[in-house]
């Protein structure tokens, strides 16, 4: 079942997209109809105007999902599953053409030869103008100026239309003829071509790790693939062409010798290091320009005109032969489209970093699989599951060993036979250290639980310590003034700024993260409890005094319940901040947790995994918040009505 779904994810996505489009249209229709049917609408600005309207929420969710499908190319894959493969073949054609195109003004403004000439002449001008004074001897100077002049004349030799030899001209015509022949082949269409069995056996687009199947799976694809192969040969041929008349060869030979002779004498001087360095640098810059020109890749003007025309026509024909593919490419594949790089075809566009929804779901189910041997979980830890936790572990965690040390009695010693008989105190110590088996209880396990656990523990201690302190700070001059500077000093520091320090002190295991989160939760709880406590109406306090309540009773029965709304709001905020801090802390260090998964995913650029973690965090955060909101409405129904 799962295999089938995974293999047919494109088709399933197609059905879902259709459903989403229908939902979107229906919700808009329903929304407009409801708005029209509404007999009286509140005046603008009345909060009542925002009440209800669930259909617009449906509309919004459908929109975001459709946008996701669209920009991840999910729609293209769902409805045009073969398009990527065909476009891959087109990309192959362009890849094969690219060495020739590089020489031509296609996709640029000038022939490459023109660019080379202009740039090198400019550099030669600069070099002659900046000839360093007092570095070279007079003889060397005239030698160097000679080299520059020779390099200049090299450019003029290349640019002379008569310089090109007959064989090169013939080769160029041959290339033009070959390209034209291929263009004709493209025009004649793909009738009669069939994809190979090997190609047809490839997994469809996006199912395997290699995203787009490389071999052509359609007749049209076979045509483009064949063209691309031929073009590769032509390109190779083209790259061997040189414009190297005998005159140029001689000049190059001479210049090389000149440069070598200067080089030999470069360090043959008593001058200091600065001068020697200046000599070396200058010669290097002269040589650099010369080396750019000694391979005969500059052609005279108009030599490549015919090649240019032939290639331009071919590219036009490829576009024509693409037919509907072109529209699919332009409409459903935002970005550059399918691009061939080395041995694979990749999606170049927003889908590079925005995985398709179906792929994210697939990744998530892989991650959620509790069977670790079956490749489930992540780095040897499940995502979320149940495990049997020995009670002894909990005992060992909560009972400090020092407590046993304080009890009366002595720890045992080994006896004369070298045997160790544990005393009662030894047994107690074993118990406190969690070494006595006490049975097991079921416990949650996995990355998500690890993250949740850290937040829950930190929140527990934050509330348990923060709320009483906050309330005392709200009612006592001593508590307020004594603790205020401490808390106000550490609270404004962003939690992540504390992280490196805390993680160094406590280590990268749970304790460090829990303490970091505790710091966050504690400050928020203190402040919210304090605000709640100090905000108690004076008349309520006075009334309870008159009713005979003691100070302690007033704290417990009046100030605490009165601060409850603030405290719960504080908890809601603290959970949110803790959650955010936690993920970042897990990214800094650790071996489990949702943030850890994302950090690993980041280092290997696994965008699907990154998005899975983002969605997990978002959904859990949302769940926390909804829970807190529900809790607030149940616990303090008088909120805003007192």
């Amino acid at each position, binding site marked *: 079942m799962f295999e089938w779904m995974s293999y047919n994810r494109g088709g399933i996505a197609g059905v879902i997209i259709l459903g989403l489009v229908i939902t979107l249209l229906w919700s808009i229709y329903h929304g407009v109809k409801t708005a029209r049917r509404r007999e009286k609408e509140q005046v603008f600005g009345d909060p009542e105007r925002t009440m209800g309207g669930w259909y617009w929420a449906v509309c919004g969710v459908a929109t975001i999902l459709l946008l996701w499908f669209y920009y991840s190319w999910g729609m293209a894959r769902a409805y045009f599953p073969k398009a990527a493969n065909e476009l891959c073949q087109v990309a192959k054609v362009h890849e094969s053409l690219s060495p020739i195109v590089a020489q031509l003004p296609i996709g640029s403004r000038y022939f490459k030869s023109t660019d080379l000439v202009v740039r090198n002449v400019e550099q030669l001008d600069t070099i002659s103008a900046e000839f360093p004074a007092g570095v070279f001897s007079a003889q060397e100077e005239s030698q160097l100026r000679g080299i520059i002049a020779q390099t200049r004349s090299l450019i003029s030799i290349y640019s002379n239309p008569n310089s090109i030899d007959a064989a090169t001209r013939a080769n160029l015509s041959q290339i033009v003829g070959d390209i034209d022949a291929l263009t004709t082949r493209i025009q004649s269409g793909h009738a009669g071509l069939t994809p190979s069995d090997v190609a047809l056996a490839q997994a469809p687009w996006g199912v395997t790790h290699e995203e787009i199947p490389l071999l052509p799976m359609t007749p049209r694809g076979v045509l483009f693939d064949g063209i691309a192969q031929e073009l590769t040969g032509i390109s190779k041929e083209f790259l061997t062409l040189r414009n190297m008349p005998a005159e140029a060869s001689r000049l190059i030979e001479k210049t090389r010798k000149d440069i070598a002779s200067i080089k030999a004498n470069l360090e043959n001087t008593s001058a200091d290091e600065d001068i020697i360095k200046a000599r070396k640098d200058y010669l290097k810059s002269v040589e650099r320009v010369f080396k750019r020109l000694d391979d005969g890749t500059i052609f005279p003007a108009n030599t490549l005109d015919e090649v240019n025309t032939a290639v331009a026509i071919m590219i036009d024909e490829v576009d024509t032969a693409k037919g509907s593919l072109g529209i699919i490419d332009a409409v459903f594949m935002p970005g550059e489209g399918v691009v061939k790089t080395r041995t694979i075809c990749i999606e170049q566009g927003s889908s590079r970093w925005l995985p398709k929804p179906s792929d994210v779901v697939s990744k998530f189910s892989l991650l959620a699989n509790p069977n670790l041997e079956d490749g489930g979980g992540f780095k040897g830890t499940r995502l979320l599951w149940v495990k049997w936790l020995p009670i002894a572990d909990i005992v060992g965690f909560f009972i400090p060993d020092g407590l046993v040390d304080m009890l009366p009695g002595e720890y045992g010693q080994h006896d004369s036979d070298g045997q160790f008989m544990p005393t009662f105190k030894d047994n107690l110590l074993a118990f406190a250290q969690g070494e006595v088996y006490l049975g097991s209880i079921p416990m949650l396990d996995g990355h998500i639980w690890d993250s949740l656990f850290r937040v829950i523990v930190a929140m527990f201690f934050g509330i348990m310590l923060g709320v009483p302190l906050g309330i005392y700070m709200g009612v006592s001059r001593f508590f307020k003034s004594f603790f205020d500077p401490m808390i106000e000093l550490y609270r404004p520091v962003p939690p992540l700024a504390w992280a490196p320090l805390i993680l160094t002190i406590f280590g990268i295991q749970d304790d460090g993260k829990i303490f970091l989160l505790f710091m966050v939760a504690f400050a928020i709880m203190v402040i919210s409890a304090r605000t709640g406590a100090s905000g108690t*109406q004076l*008349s*309520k306090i*006075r*009334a*309870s*005094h*008159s*009713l*005979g*309540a*003691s100070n302690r*009773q007033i704290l417990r*029965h*009046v100030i605490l*319940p*009165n601060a*409850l709304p603030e405290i719960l709001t504080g908890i809601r905020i603290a959970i949110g901040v803790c959650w955010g801090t936690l993920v970042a802390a897990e990214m800094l260090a650790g071996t489990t947790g949702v943030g850890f998964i994302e950090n690993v995913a980041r280092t290997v650029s696994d965008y699907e995994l990154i998005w899975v973690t983002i969605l997990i965090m978002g959904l859990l955060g949302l769940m926390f918040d909804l829970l807190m909101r529900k809790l607030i409405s149940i616990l*303090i*129904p*008088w909120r805003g*009505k*007192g």
Partner: protein
Amino acid sequence: MSDLVCNELCMTFTAPGNGAKVEALKNINFTLKQGELLSVLGPSGCGKTTLLNMVAGFLNPTSGDLMLGGNRIEGPGVERGMVFQQGALFEWLTVNKNVDFGLRMKNMPAAERKQLVDKWLDIVGLAGFGDTPTYQLSGGMQQRVALARCLVNDPDLILMDEPLGALDALTREKMQSLILELWKETGKTIIIITHSVEEALLLGQRLFVMAPRPGRIHKEYQLDFAEQGLKESLRDIKQKNDFNKVREEILTMIWDMEEEIMGGV
């Protein structure tokens, strides 16, 4: 007998900022016998709320003595119940829990508490509302709860700080009758602070008109409208000539005081 004795009572505040001394009350002397109904009237700033807060024990006098039943008042106590303008109910508790708050603080057994609460809710006309959350009650009902919460503790002295100030005219009249009935039935000493001259006349067996700067008792009246109010309708009393005469006299008095303040500025 628990009479309230006030002897040369003075209260001086230091104004925040410039540190100027403000004499909120100066040399107040009176004795309130048990069962007397006193209403206190005066322009704003005459120290009537300060006087009440000192009787309640929320403020300590700068000098002078306040004695209730021979004991010096040195802090809030159960024997002096207080009813506030806005009720000051605990909105997180139901009506029952609000009313028996004082009893619960004394750890009275649940059965006794229930009996007392039911009795007092019945008296203030809230029978059957015991389990209603207080934030769902109207202003008048909230004040009834506040009255019951105070009375259930059986205080010797009931202090009311503008208890009816936030109510509409009709509810107010009903509550005035209720207060008179409670006074009659329980025989408690009651001090009521009010802004309304009518209310002060209707609910005052004795009436203090206070004057500001320094806060002092300007004039004292002995009235019998409260006694009449137990037998006749309050609306009829308001029509009477002698009622109107006293009302006009006091209104003029307060008017003059306000003029004096405004002129003095």
